[in-house]
């Protein structure tokens, strides 16, 4: 099911929340589990069993590690078999077609691709279960004794299909005992509603603009860059809105999920960007790949090798296609350059130029990211430098920017930490002023909600971008 859909908002969610808050605490986890499985089965009626199996493997691994893991050899065998099963499932369901394609290309054979449909969210829940197994192996956390409780963690519907990648250690305590305070309810709801509006009123609108620029064969160079900026904004608002909704829903139930975005488009370098974008993924790679490989502590050569591995995998994680790998390595190269070549010089530049460099590099990177069809990329990219008959500037930019000016303006403002600063000012001034601003904010929220519902009624189906990953 999709958060920004009528069945979820008007039937699934009210039914769940009412039931969840009516039952006593010992029934809360079972209610959450049942609704989570329904939520997943709504989109994947068959693969829901795959997810349950994947969770069972890691649950079993945890129990085995604790019960019988008395020698290092046994512990390694337990861990490796769990990792092997999980990563094989991910490889098979996500990358089999891609691998067969590469194999055919290299050998000139024509082996039929298995044609497997990607199970929604498999990349996310596989990473969660892997982090659990490793953490139990490293004795960072105790193993969970009850399969259903562990399954509740893996399948928890707010974060199941598009993150944030919540680690078991984060929610273990909450799973056993949690309470929802009044602040949790109100702030969780506000967070959820904000995310919903960011998705429907900003991401979808700018996505429509990107679609029409992409479909236009005669764009000028300026419009081509506007197009990539639109895709960047769409992806940011789409994905961070999903995290907003997940975090908000979690809070309504008393869970505390980690933040996943921190104004990434306002980063001053690519290094900074990756501390702000999809934080739960980059810290996952840091903790479970980069540091185990030795990080940066074993010399420059090994450091570069480790970076290559991490960014190759980061790219590959995003999709079974060459453009994602190129995108990952592109960021890896930029990070290495910032570390060893121009990082210090960059910091001496005026802040404005630092941000411009970062934004341009990020936006161009998402240009690689968005075209999984190399042919289409080949048609679009010449426009970015005004080749292939594309003019440098044209009236088309007036058309596209003009049509979406208010949405673009709001999106750009919300991409920078303007809101926290305004809030600081407002909370710092008098009570009457604060109340009138909050009143305005409330009215805006209700008005936005009506527009959101109207927009959802019009375009019934508009899934999140990160469902593909």
């Amino acid at each position, binding site marked *: 099911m999709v958060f920004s859909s009528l069945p979820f908002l008007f*039937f699934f969610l009210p039914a769940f929340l009412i039931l969840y808050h009516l039952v006593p605490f010992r029934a809360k986890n079972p209610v959450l589990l049942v609704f989570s499985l329904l939520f997943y089965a709504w989109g994947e009626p068959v693969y829901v069993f795959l997810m349950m199996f994947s969770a069972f493997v890691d649950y079993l691994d945890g129990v085995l590690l604790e019960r019988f893991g008395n020698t290092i050899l046994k512990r390694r065998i337990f861990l490796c078999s769990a990792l092997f099963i999980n990563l094989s499932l991910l490889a098979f369901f996500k990358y089999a077609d891609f691998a067969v394609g590469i194999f055919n290309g290299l050998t000139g054979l024509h082996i039929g691709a298995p044609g497997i449909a990607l199970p929604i969210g498999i990349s996310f829940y596989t990473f969660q279960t892997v982090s659990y197994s490793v953490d139990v192996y490293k004795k960072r956390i105790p193993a969970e004794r009850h399969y259903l409780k562990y399954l509740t963690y893996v399948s928890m519907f707010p974060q199941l299909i598009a993150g944030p990648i919540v680690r078991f250690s984060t929610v273990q305590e909450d799973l056993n005992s949690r309470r929802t305070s009044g602040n949790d309810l109100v702030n969780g709801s506000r967070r959820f509603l904000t995310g919903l509006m960011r998705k429907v009123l900003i991401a979808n609108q700018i996505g429509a603009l990107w679609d029409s620029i992409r*479909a*236009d064969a005669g764009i000028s160079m300026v419009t081509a860059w506007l197009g990539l900026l639109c895709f960047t904004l769409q992806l940011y608002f789409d994905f961070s809105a999903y995290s907003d909704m997940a975090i908000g829903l979690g809070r309504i139930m008393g869970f505390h999920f980690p933040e996943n975005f921190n104004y990434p488009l306002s980063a001053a370098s690519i290094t900074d960007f990756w501390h702000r974008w999809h934080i739960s993924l980059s810290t996952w790679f840091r903790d479970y790949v980069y540091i185990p490989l030795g990080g940066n502590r074993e010399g420059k050569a090994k450091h570069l090798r480790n970076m290559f591995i991490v960014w190759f995998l980061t790219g590959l994680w995003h999709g079974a296609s060459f453009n994602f790998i190129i995108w990952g390595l592109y960021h890896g190269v930029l990070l290495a350059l910032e570390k060893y070549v121009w990082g210090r010089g960059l910091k001496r530049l005026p802040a404005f130029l630092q941000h411009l460099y970062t934004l341009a590099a990020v936006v161009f990177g998402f240009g690689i990211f968005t075209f999984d069809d190399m042919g289409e990329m080949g048609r679009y990219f010449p426009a970015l430098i005004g080749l292939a008959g594309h003019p440098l500037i044209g009236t*088309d930019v*007036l*058309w596209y920017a003009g049509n979406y000016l208010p949405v673009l303006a709001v999106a750009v403002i919300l991409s920078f930490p303007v809101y926290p600063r305004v809030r600081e000012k407002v*909370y710092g001034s008098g009570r009457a002023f604060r109340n009138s601003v909050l009143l305005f904010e*409330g009215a805006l929220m209700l008005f936005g*909600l009506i527009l959101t519902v109207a927009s959802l009624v019009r375009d019934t189906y508009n899934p999140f971008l990160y469902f593909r990953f």
Partner: protein
Amino acid sequence: MTEDINKNREYDDVCFIQRLTVFLACGMMLFFSFAFFAGEKKTFSENENRVLAGTPEFDLPSVRNGQFMKQTEAYISDHFPFRDGFLGIITEGERLSGRKEIEGVYLAKDGSLIESYVAQENTGKVITQFFRFSENLENAKCYLMIVPTAVTICRDRLPDYCPDLKARGRHAGPAADHGDPDGQGFDPEGQESYGQESVINEIYEGVSGRIVTVDALGALKEYAGADADTEDRLYYRLDHHWTTRGAYAGYTAFCRAAGMAPSELTDYEVKTVSDDFRGTVYSKLNDPHFGYDRIVSCEHPDWKLKVEYADSGEVTDTMYAPEYLEKKDQYSYFLNNIHPLVTITNEAVPDGAAAVVKDSYANSLIPFLAVHYHTIYVFDTRYYKGGVSSFINEHPEIGEVLILYNLGTMDNDTGIGGIY
């Protein structure tokens, strides 16, 4: 690094206003949930002119293949309380935010709504089918009229800088891509112009020699130029069809191609039969801001008509169906909506017969043909399953066959394959 986030903690204590906002939002959402269950479920949307999704059927196979979920989502969306009102709200919001194009519809400078044109995928197939159809005809002479839509004829009213004003327009991109392998849409000879004019030229070149082509585009442009200052529109403001006057322009183009003298518009009794028409393009946006259209009918004083509908067996003495003026779908006033075969006899004309293979654009043009023929056979190939060419060959009195489609929806007529 996460200083902006951690500051949130300071602002965690909620006040009454924030609580009230959340309560109102929840109340609103619950209200719609209840309204959905309480509301009456219509089976047909007059406004959108389509059958709404039926109650989803629950069984194991349809759950396993996801059909049940899809049906449920369609059902909820189609029967959502105040659906029509919500459509209007979002359009109005987008219009006020400065949008000049909403859901593929241009908000034209004169306040009318004009659908943008995306070159379609099946145009090549359609040409082949016209050609094969004409080859199957034994005696009758075949004419082809492809009518451009308002986006081409009313260019001067399109919003400034819009893509349809450019030479290199849009192609069916990834969003509009339905199984077209190279994602390019219809590509006439690899040219980079996708405008309607070039698509029509391409189609006409493909059938030349076999089929007489009718220059509706030229005639419409002539009328558009001549009537620039008058209120007489060639296309409806809020519907994808041409008006009676547009149809008259098309009719003169046919007469020119067939070597006939067209009747003058002044020969007809021209009557405004409706001034509250809101057509298909309006329904896409559903915003009352855009107003209404007028429908005009033309009746010739000499007509002695008998109109027979083969499917229902109904016989009338008029080509118009006034009962539709009371409904949403007022364009069906012309030739009574959809019928596989309509036979129109005009006793005032001694002889001559023609056949029209057509879409709904022809419905407002056919009345003008009545003064030239004793009998006109009108086929809708989506529903006529008998084989149009064999029917025509069995009726040797048919001298002319006119194939008439508009370019905007030509691809939708999957029945074109059945015309020969």
